[in-house]
Each structure stands twice: as structure tokens, then as C-alpha cells.
């Protein structure tokens, strides 16, 4: 041990250390590449399989890449099961929820950050604490509520319980706190009412948080499963994730079709992510800063 220490002087050591660096660099790179392969392998396998025939998928000897690329699976799936319809349902639902929550989060965040009133801190703490309540705990009363309001099987049951989100309000409150009061007061002196102050002065400055919330809210809505599964009954109103389950129940042996169907649900999200990846990663980091 001592000898090694002494050797750490002079040129000999530099060479030794360089070698050590090179070895650890190779090891690190191998580990990271291996993990990357394990991470994306399921996606690549899914896409490759979606172009194979059923016979090729369940053959004893398999190759990773399809022998001949066929598009029949996608055609079949779209004919047998109206995936385009479910895709559009999910898209419209996710977009509506995203637009609504961005607006409600921004205005609530603004009120909680910029106005003084009794119980403000209490209200904010209360909203935050609702984030800790597991969704599955309140699902029974929410379901019976929808039943009593006769909202079952309507989009009201999907949209109205999602109008506000505690996560969005939290993010927007942080963003609004950073806006200087003087700016708002200046607008007020010019005669702007409170609604105008919010829409003209505050909202345009929140674009970073708008993007973060939009991304997450869109993905969460796209991923919603249990709630649409429970409250939507008619097939043609259903969301893509639930339709996927229905499809797999009905055509459980049509592996190729299932691969095509899951690809339809996953690939658009992956493309969306790859296009906006920088925003995504900024958004996650921003949402965790509260820790």
C-alpha cells in the first residue's frame, strides 16, 4: 500500500494512471451500453415482431429481425378493431385534459402566489396533501358519484374529475412567485382588472411551466387506464389503453396483431418524446427540485 503511494510521484505514475483511466473508461462504457441495450430491447423486439407473421413469431427457431417485412398486421388490426377510433379518442381526451389543467393550474397558482388572504397557506397545504391520497382509495365513492349523477359512459365522468391537478398547481405557484409584484402593480395602475393582469401579464410569462405541465399531463392522460375502464361502457367511446386490453382478451392468440396494436399505442409517444426530449428532461428535473 505504502509502495503504491510512493509511486504516485513522477512520470511512471502518470502512465500507470492513464492506463487505469483507460480501463475504467472501457468498463464504464460497456456497462452503460449494456444497460442501454437492455432498455430499448423490448421496444425493438416489439417493432420487429409487429412486422412478422404469426407463424414466424411462434416458430421454434427464431431470428430477431423479420425475414420479410409485412404490413398485414397493422392492416388487420385496424380492420378487426377500430384502433384508429380509440387512438383519436385518447388523443382528444388527453389534449382536452391538458389544455384545461394548464389553464386551471396557472390561475390557481397565480391566486395562491400573489394574493393575500386568510387561509391561503392552509389551502395550499391542503391541495398538496391531496397528492398523497392514493387514487385507488377514493375510486369507489368517485365511481358511485358518477353513477348517481348519471355521468357513467359520458366524457363528463372522465374530464370533470380531472379539471384541477395538485401537481400542476404546485408547479405554477412556484413559477408565479418568481414574477415581481411591481410588474402587476404597474398594470393595475394602468387600469387593468385582475383578470386582465392574469391573462395579459402573468400567463405569457409561464411558458416554461406550461410546457412541463403539458408534457406530463398529456402522458398521464394518455396512460389513464382504470378510470376510463370503469366509467366508459360503450366500445366506441373507449380509450386506447383499455381497447388494447379488450383486444388482447378477444384475440389472445393473434400475437402479431397484438404486437402491431401495442406499437400503435407506444410509437407515437416515443416519437413525441424524441422530438421534445430536451424539454422532457428539463421538466422532470424541475418537478423534483421541491425535494
Amino acid at each position, binding site marked *: 500500500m505504502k509502495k503504491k503511494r510512493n509511486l504516485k510521484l513522477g512520470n511512471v505514475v502518470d502512465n500507470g494512471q492513464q492506463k487505469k483511466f483507460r480501463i475504467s473508461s472501457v468498463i*464504464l*462504457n460497456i456497462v*452503460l451500453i449494456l*444497460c*442501454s441495450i*437492455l*432498455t430499448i430491447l*423490448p*421496444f425493438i*423486439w*416489439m417493432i420487429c*415482431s409487429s412486422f412478422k407473421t404469426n407463424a414466424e413469431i411462434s416458430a421454434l427457431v427464431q431470428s430477431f429481425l423479420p425475414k420479410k417485412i409485412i404490413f398485414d398486421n397493422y392492416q388487420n388490426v385496424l380492420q378487426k378493431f377500430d384502433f384508429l377510433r380509440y387512438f383519436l379518442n385518447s388523443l382528444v381526451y388527453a389534449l382536452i385534459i391538458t389544455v384545461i389543467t394548464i389553464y*386551471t393550474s396557472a390561475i390557481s397558482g397565480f391566486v395562491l402566489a*400573489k*394574493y*393575500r*388572504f386568510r387561509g391561503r397557506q392552509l*389551502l395550499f397545504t391542503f*391541495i398538496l396533501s391531496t397528492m398523497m*391520497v*392514493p387514487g*385507488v*382509495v*377514493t*375510486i*369507489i*365513492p*368517485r*365511481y*358511485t358519484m358518477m353513477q348517481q349523477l348519471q355521468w357513467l359512459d359520458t366524457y363528463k365522468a372522465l374530464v370533470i374529475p380531472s379539471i*384541477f391537478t395538485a401537481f400542476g*398547481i404546485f408547479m405554477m405557484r412556484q413559477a408565479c412567485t418568481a414574477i415581481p*409584484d*411591481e410588474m*402587476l*402593480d404597474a398594470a*393595475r395602475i394602468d387600469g387593468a382588472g*385582475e*383578470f386582465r393582469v*392574469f391573462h395579459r401579464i402573468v400567463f405569457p410569462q409561464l411558458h416554461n411551466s406550461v410546457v412541463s405541465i403539458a408534457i406530463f399531463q398529456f*402522458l398521464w392522460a*394518455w*396512460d389513464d*387506464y*382504470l378510470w376510463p375502464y*370503469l366509467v366508459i361502457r360503450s366500445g366506441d367511446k373507449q380509450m386506447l389503453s383499455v381497447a*388494447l*386490453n379488450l383486444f388482447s382478451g378477444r384475440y389472445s392468440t393473434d*400475437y402479431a396483431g397484438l404486437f402491431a396494436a*401495442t406499437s400503435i*399505442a*407506444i410509437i407515437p409517444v416515443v416519437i413525441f*418524446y*424524441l422530438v421534445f*426530449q430536451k424539454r*422532457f*428532461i428539463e421538466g*422532470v*428535473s424541475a418537478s423534483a427540485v421541491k*425535494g
Partner: protein
Amino acid sequence: MHARKKKYRGGHNGGALKNIVVCSLVIFFSAFVVIPIIVVFIGSFHQWNPLKGEFSFLGLDNWKKVFGSDLFWLSMGNTVIFAAIATSFRVVLGLALSSALYSKLIKYKSLYRILYYLPTITPLVAVTFVWKFIFDPQIGLLDKLLQTNINWLFDSKYAMIAILILTIWKDFGYAVIIFLGGLYSLPRDCYEAAEVDGANSMQRFRWVTLPLLKPTVLFIVITSLISYFQTYIPVMVLTQGGPGTATYLSSYLIFDEAFTKYNFGYASALSFVLFVFIAIMTGISFKVSGSTQTE
């Protein structure tokens, strides 16, 4: 606290805008969170079946049934084990890979980041279907890669492991991103000081990085535990709690009792237990993280 008060002195009382927003917030969160919790509590003392329109007082029967039920204790045990293992893997993998990515020896950092985060953003239900095929003994990829012949989802020894593999694969990237953000925000001079003192990279990690990253680690541990206590989608899609009862998790048990057996009263009692359990866990976590922050 004082500074904060000062900052808001110029604040406006808000008028109509404030009143509308505050009222909507109170109504919304009461209607969809507070009242449901109260209804769950009341419902737990009733024989409650929405299909038959039945809602009659039962006293403590549902509660006795919950605590006397083997399946309840088994699902709680499964949930705790599942959450503990999934959280540990997430933290360890996240720390290891983010430290590796942080190293100066690595190029293409952002490419790795994009790839690792990919599973986290993809829709869980669809991805779970892909894994259902990966675990399939006939067409599955996993048995082929491992050269094994395991029927992952139908063997009670392996079913929970399968759900864990899926969960770890899906979620580790989030931890990598968060830890990497934490690493970049650490003060550089601590490292330089440690390097001057002759600490090797392992020692630097143990004595410099880890203590400084503690708040981030706690954040990941707390948020992971809370979300893993509520996991049910992989169970619904992959195993339906089976084989036998091997993969029953608490949230799945609630869903099963409520929406396949329509035992709303019994399921309400289960829900309330889960609610209290998670509330206590959250309270403890905040105590722990609060005490380390004031250290």
C-alpha cells in the same frame, strides 16, 4: 418567514378572480378527495353493493373480515416486499448509472440519458403488454436470452419477480435523471478538496457524493415507496393476482373486491386501511427527511 411576509406586503386582495378560484378549488378538492374519503370510511361499516342498490348498516363486520383475512395480510406483505425491492433497485441503479454518466470518461451523455428515460415516458399499459410477451414461455424473449425454460407469469416462484423486473426496467431512468440533476448541482470544490487529499473515486463517492446527495436520495425513496404501495396495473394486465394469490398487491385487492366482486363495503374498509397506512408512511418519511435537512 419574516422575509416572506414582507415580500407579500404589496399583495392585492384579488377581488372576484380570487373568490372564484378559491371557491372552485375548495369545491373541487372536497368533492373528489375529502368527501370520497369520508364516504369510504362510512361505507366500510355497511353492506354495500351498487349493483343490487344495497346499502345497509353492518357494524364492524367488514373490519373484522379485513383483519381476519389471510389474503389481506398476504397482500400487505407482498406490497411491502414489492415496494422495498423495487425502491432499492431504483435507488441503487439510479445512483450507479448517474455516477457513471457524471464521470468525465463518458461521451455521448445526453444520448444515454434519452435512452434510459425512454421506458418511463412510454404508456404503462401498452408496455406491460409487451412484457407479457417477453415473459411468454413460447414466444418470449427472456427465456431465449437467459437460455431458461421458466413460465414466468404462471409459476408462483417467478411471477412476482417478473412484475419486479418490469417495474424496475420502467422506472430506473427517472432515478438516473433526478440523481444526475442532483450531481450537477453539487459544489465542485468539495471534490477538488477530496482529490487533493488523495481520496480515490470510491472514497469520494462514499464520503463526499453520498452525504451531499442525501436529500435527493430521500426524495426518490419517498416518492418511490408511495407510488409502489399503489401499484396495480402490471398485476391487472400480467397475472390478475395469480398464480394462486402470489402477486396480490393491496391496490389490486381493492380493485378486485370492488369491481369484480362488487363488495363495496369490504373494499371500502380495505381502502381506508391502505389510506391510513400510506398516510403513516408519508408522515414518517417527512419526519425523517425533515430531521436530516435541519442536521
